[in-house]
């Protein structure tokens, strides 16, 4: 019987599929056929066929299992599928493919170089941004157990700002007692002492913390110990842990410092420990003292000045803790309506809670820009690769005709892409190092201490992995496009087309045109965003501030409570320094204020206007300033109505205030505010408005234009900033100001002595830097987009050389040729610009909402950009077209 001699075909196909080694496969199938023949003679065909099936399945299964679990040779399913057509083993095919790909890359060296450089630039920009985002925003804290920590605080319902230091002691005590989701708490409170008893006194940023604070954060002092629970009792708190930077800077890294006494605020403190290098939590702290609160302080529900950190109980999520604390805070709202009625729980993970609310969005915008750049680069690369794929389509067709498998061609294109990605990756690493170096030097030193995670900005292995992944993914995706086209190509079609065709395949053109249009659109959006950011940064430094920052010298200092408890002594100190400086001819005006604009802190008070019964929780806040009579003159802040303060405003006369225009407008609308009264505390004294000043911007990151000014003579501050308007360079007077302060009080340090201009620059320095970085990203994007248009047009016109030759031979003029060839570029450019403009407006709106009043989406700006970009794109298309028009028709026709 004939069927008895032929074993089941399908079973053999199965074996063919599973067994990679050709010899082994043949031997195996042969063996089975041999035995099948014997078996069939004995028991008949159908039974033998079943037998063959069983054997084949068993062999296939065992073989697959062996290949899965055996280490050597490795199992490469995808690639081996691709080179299945090859009769040899997987290895030989692979090596051949790599060699072939390398030859192809070298063959078109220019295109390959452009692809590699484009990819490297985009990857470097993206990775630079990502490493900064990662270090500063995503993972600024990297100690063990950081993911089990959370930050809880209180916010008002209408407040977007996450104020970490906003919990009252009495509220906290109840949380501590009742919370089941938090197993340990740490507390901290702002404490900025003067380091005295040394040559130059210094104000040190510091915090009072509860015992166990350091161990909760996983920190062990490098010398000594942290605070004991006894030391948080009132009267026992005169101990400090020094920050590593302070210890190095002011105590020459004295290894025997533990147990010694140092002076803060003119009082002796015993050093019990030194923190490890780099630890400056929270907020750039350089010294820590025990938080020693009295029973009275613990019972205070009014003062909201504590920061909390909680360690979550095992298996509890931040969300669960938030739910529980929201419940507790809701109870407190009910039980203490007079103080708590507007308090809401805010609970965030430690990393998010301790982050600077400003930095995240900014760096986020930068990251988005870098991602867009990567997209543009990918589009560009895809375009170049497709152009090359098109050039090689006849080669592909020929190889297909000669019997090469489609999978094989596909694999080769893929390998080519991977090789290019590898080269791009190698080049991006040095670029990344340069980018990170520039970024790190771009942020002002004074800002750095407030940036946790600063030290983590560096190239690390994870980053390398992310970069490698991005690069390879991008390359694979975009090598596949031409590979798919190569696979789909019909041999006969392509061969015919590459013979005497007029224009290349329509489908391919559409895809490439879409890519070019995308590039233009993204570039336009990016450049628009970066110009917005740059003008925003410019506005924040040079825009409407409400005062004149030029030619002003400032000195900020804090008077210690111990020596200056009496308001009269503070007043005398301020007046003595002012008098000493007034005699200097270069000083045209001098004043003092409690908070100079652009200072890192701020003070606000709740406002209770007369005639309205407001509860504490309902009252809105205004920035609170106490000033000397000449302060507004020094700052050139205009006095729009009424009068300024003068020597007639004393402690024993009517309490008076000057308010900003926005303040007057909020509380009294269009009424004349002069003579109106308000209070700054529910039990405070009535203050009478005597004048209205212009609004000022203290800090761009907080939307606040409400200011109240009070005379120093009626409320003398502990925190003092002198402001001197000078003739000539303000810095020249720094020595005089230092001496004047030292003459009045030799123990009194000056925390910061700087020009107002520089102070502002530093405050917005990070922002300005990011704006500049965005600008760089935008420029690269622009260059890439132009390159994309140019390469597309150059390619398209080159493809149409023959057609152009025919047209010219038939009498077409130079301009007709140029018009015919650039028509397509015009369409692409217009489409790209249209989409880009829509994108740009959307991005502008988003940025406007993040950067408050600084940024306005300007349509004039957008129009200018669209025009410039459009012209540049058309120019990029014009050059190839002109070259095409310049060719000799005969040469063009002869070209194959």
């Amino acid at each position, binding site marked *: 019987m004939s069927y008895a001699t032929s074993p089941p075909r399908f079973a053999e196909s199965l074996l063919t599929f599973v067994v990679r080694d050709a010899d082994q496969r043949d031997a195996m199938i042969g*063996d089975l056929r041999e035995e099948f023949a014997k078996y069939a003679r004995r028991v008949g065909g159908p039974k033998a066929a079943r037998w063959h099936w069983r054997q084949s399945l068993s062999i296939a299964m065992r073989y697959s299992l062996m290949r899965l679990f055996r280490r050597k040779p490795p199992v490469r399913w995808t690639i081996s599928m691709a080179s299945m057509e090859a009769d040899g083993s997987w290895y030989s095919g692979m090596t051949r493919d790599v060699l072939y790909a390398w030859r192809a890359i070298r063959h078109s060296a220019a295109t390959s170089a452009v692809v590699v450089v484009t990819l490297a630039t985009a990857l470097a920009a993206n990775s630079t941004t990502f490493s900064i985002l990662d270090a500063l925003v995503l993972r600024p804290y990297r100690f063990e157990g950081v993911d089990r920590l959370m930050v809880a605080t209180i916010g008002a319902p209408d407040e977007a700002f996450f104020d970490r230091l906003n919990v009252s002691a009495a509220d906290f005590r109840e949380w501590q007692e009742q919370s089941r989701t938090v197993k340990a708490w740490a507390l901290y409170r702002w404490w900025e002492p003067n380091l005295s008893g040394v040559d130059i006194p210094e104000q040190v940023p510091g915090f009072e913390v509860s015992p166990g604070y350091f161990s909760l954060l996983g920190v062990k002092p490098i010398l000594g110990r942290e605070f004991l629970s006894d030391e948080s009792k009132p009267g026992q708190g005169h101990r400090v842990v020094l920050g590593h930077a302070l210890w190095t800077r002011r105590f020459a890294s004295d290894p025997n410092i533990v147990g010694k006494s140092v002076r803060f605020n003119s009082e002796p403190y015993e050093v019990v420990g030194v923190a490890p290098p780099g630890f400056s939590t929270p907020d750039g702290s350089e010294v820590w003292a025990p938080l020693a609160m009295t029973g009275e302080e613990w019972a205070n529900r009014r003062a909201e000045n504590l920061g909390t950190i909680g360690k979550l109980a095992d298996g509890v999520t931040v969300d669960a803790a938030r739910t529980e604390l929201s419940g507790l805070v809701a109870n407190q709202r009910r039980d203490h309506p007079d103080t708590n009625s507007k308090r809401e729980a805010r609970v965030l993970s430690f990393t998010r809670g301790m982050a600077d609310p400003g930095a995240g969005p900014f760096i986020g915008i930068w990251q988005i820009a870098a991602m867009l750049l990567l997209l543009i680069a990918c589009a560009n690369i895809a375009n170049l690769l497709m152009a090359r794929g098109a050039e090689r389509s006849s080669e592909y067709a020929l190889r297909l005709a000669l019997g090469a498998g489609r999978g094989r061609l596909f694999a080769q294109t893929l390998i080519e892409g991977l090789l290019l990605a590898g080269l791009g990756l190698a080049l991006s690493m040095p670029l990344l190092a340069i980018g990170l170096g520039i970024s790190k030097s771009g942020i002002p030193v004074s800002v750095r201490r407030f940036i946790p995670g600063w030290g983590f900005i560096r190239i690390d292995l994870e980053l390398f992995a992310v970069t490698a992944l991005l690069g390879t993914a991008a390359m694979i995706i975009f090598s596949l496009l031409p590979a798919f086209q190569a696979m789909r190509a019909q041999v006969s079609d392509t061969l015919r087309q590459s013979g005497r065709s007029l224009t290349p395949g329509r489908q391919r053109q559409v895809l490439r045109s879409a890519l070019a249009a995308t590039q233009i659109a993204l570039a336009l959006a990016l450049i628009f965003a970066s110009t917005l950011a740059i003008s925003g940064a410019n506005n924040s430094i040079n825009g409407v501030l409400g005062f004149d920052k030029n030619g002003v010298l400032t000195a900020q200092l804090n008077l210690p409570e111990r020596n200056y408890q009496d308001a009269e002594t503070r007043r005398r100190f301020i007046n003595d320094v002012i008098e000493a400086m007034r005699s200097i001819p270069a000083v045209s005006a001098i004043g003092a204020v409690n908070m100079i604009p652009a200072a890192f802190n701020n003070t606000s008070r709740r406002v209770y206007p007369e005639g309205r019964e407001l509860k504490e929780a309902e009252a809105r806040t205004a920035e609170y300033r106490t000033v000397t009579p000449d302060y507004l003159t020094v700052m050139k802040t205009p006095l729009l109505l009424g009068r300024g303060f003068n020597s007639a405003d004393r402690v024993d006369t009517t309490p008076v205030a000057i308010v900003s225009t926005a303040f007057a407008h909020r509380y009294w609308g269009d009424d004349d505010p002069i003579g109106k009264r308000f209070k700054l505390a529910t039990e405070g004294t009535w203050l009478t408005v005597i004048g209205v000043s212009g609004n000022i911007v203290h800090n761009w990151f907080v939307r606040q234009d409400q200011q109240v000014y009070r005379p120093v003579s009626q409320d003398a501050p502990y925190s003092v900033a002198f402001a001197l308007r000078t003739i000539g360079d303000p810095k020249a007077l720094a020595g005089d100001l230092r001496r004047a302060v030292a003459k009045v009080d030799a123990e009194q340090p000056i925390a910061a002595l700087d020009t107002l201009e520089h102070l502002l620059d530093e405050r917005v320095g990070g922002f300005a830097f990011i704006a500049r970085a965005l600008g760089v990203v935008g420029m690269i994007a622009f260059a890439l987009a132009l390159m994309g248009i140019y390469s597309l047009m150059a390619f398209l016109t080159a493809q149409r050389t023959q057609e152009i030759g025919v047209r010219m031979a038939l009498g077409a003029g130079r301009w007709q040729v140029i018009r015919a060839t650039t028509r397509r570029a015009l369409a692409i450019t217009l489409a790209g610009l249209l989409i880009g403009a829509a994108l740009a407006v959307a991005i502008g709106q988003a940025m406007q909402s993040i950067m408050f009043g600084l940024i306005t989406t300007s349509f004039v700006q957008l129009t200018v950009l669209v025009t410039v970009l459009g012209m540049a794109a058309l120019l990029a298309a014009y050059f190839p077209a002109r070259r095409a028009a310049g060719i000799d028709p005969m040469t063009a026709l002869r070209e194959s």
Partner: protein
Amino acid sequence: MAPIYLGEFEYAVLLAVLHLGEDAYAVPVRELIEQRTGRPVARGALYTGLDRLEAKGCLKSRMGDPSEERGGKARRYYSVTPAGLKAIRATHDALSSMTRGLESILEKS
């Protein structure tokens, strides 16, 4: 070089290849093992075993000529390499040293 450890099945396969000499290809190898040990041998196990032994360097193979009987497919003939011989001896020695002194028990049963 330390001798290669052989499992029981691998040991049997190598011995069968030795027995068969010039004619050692998968079909007779399997039949011989089944005959002598009285245990069924799965073809899949045999092929993976042969592969493994070849990868270890105990066997080498050559392709024979295609034959009509096999539907135009060639036989793959195996022969034991010097390393394979060494492995057989090492395994044999190890097993016989384990059985030394137990002859009286082993002979009876």
